[in-house]
């Protein structure tokens, strides 16, 4: 089991694609971390790969030693709601 040391970081990608059936429809994506047992102190996210399209800016929630949840919500009823980018977990 990989366990990030103090001051370590873990990086990766996320991609959220959804049909927003209505405004404010939430979509979440759970991202398991590679590291286990170490508890992150924080995380950063960007939208460098796909700018937020018909969705709100993504946010983190439920950051644990196992991963985190990226959450976003549609800003309109649409079949084209997407956002993607990088994340960095800080330990």
């Amino acid at each position, binding site marked *: 089991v990989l366990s990030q040391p103090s001051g370590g970081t873990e990086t990766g990608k996320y991609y959220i694609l959804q049909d927003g059936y209505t405004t404010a429809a939430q979509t979440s994506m759970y991202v398991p971390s590679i590291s286990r047992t170490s508890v992150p102190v924080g995380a950063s996210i960007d939208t460098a790969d796909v700018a937020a399209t018909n969705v709100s800016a993504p946010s983190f*929630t439920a*950051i644990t030693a196992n991963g985190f949840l990226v959450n976003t919500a549609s800003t309109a009823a649409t079949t084209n709601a997407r956002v993607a980018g990088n994340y960095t977990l800080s330990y």
Partner: protein
Amino acid sequence: MLHAIDHEMLHWQCLILDRKGRVKSCGQWKTAHIDEAEYQLLHDEDGTGRGAVIALPRCECGAHCFLKADYDLEELYDELQEVTDEETGATVAVLPYRYIRNLQAHWMLYERGKADYAPVLPMPPIALLERPEFASVKPATVMALWFGYLAARPDGTALKELEEASSERL
């Protein structure tokens, strides 16, 4: 993550890395007042605040930093580090600063009524930080020992003892 809390100002670095460890965000050092930070709790299914984060102000480069704000006693216990006194061999548990800064920011928001739930551990009393024997010790060091003591027993017995001692004083 937070690098420092100076009075009511939060300091952190805008940091997104790629798989090779190269900085992809602007990498700038950021400063914001605690009132600019936002406690976010998406789903409060069990009524404990599990899942909460503190969102720092979004950087102009587009990156957004979040701090974990739902530590439980077991998580903090797992991150304790031991410090041994070379002369006596006595060992104490301390909580690393990076966790203390999160707890401190969380408390600041809670005291302002901007967080639904308080952190799992209380801040040290002001009277403790102002004791003469700690005059030459940085407050962060006192907090590292304070939180280390409270988190060293993840069953919560240290917290109960503290509450009992507080109620007896009252």
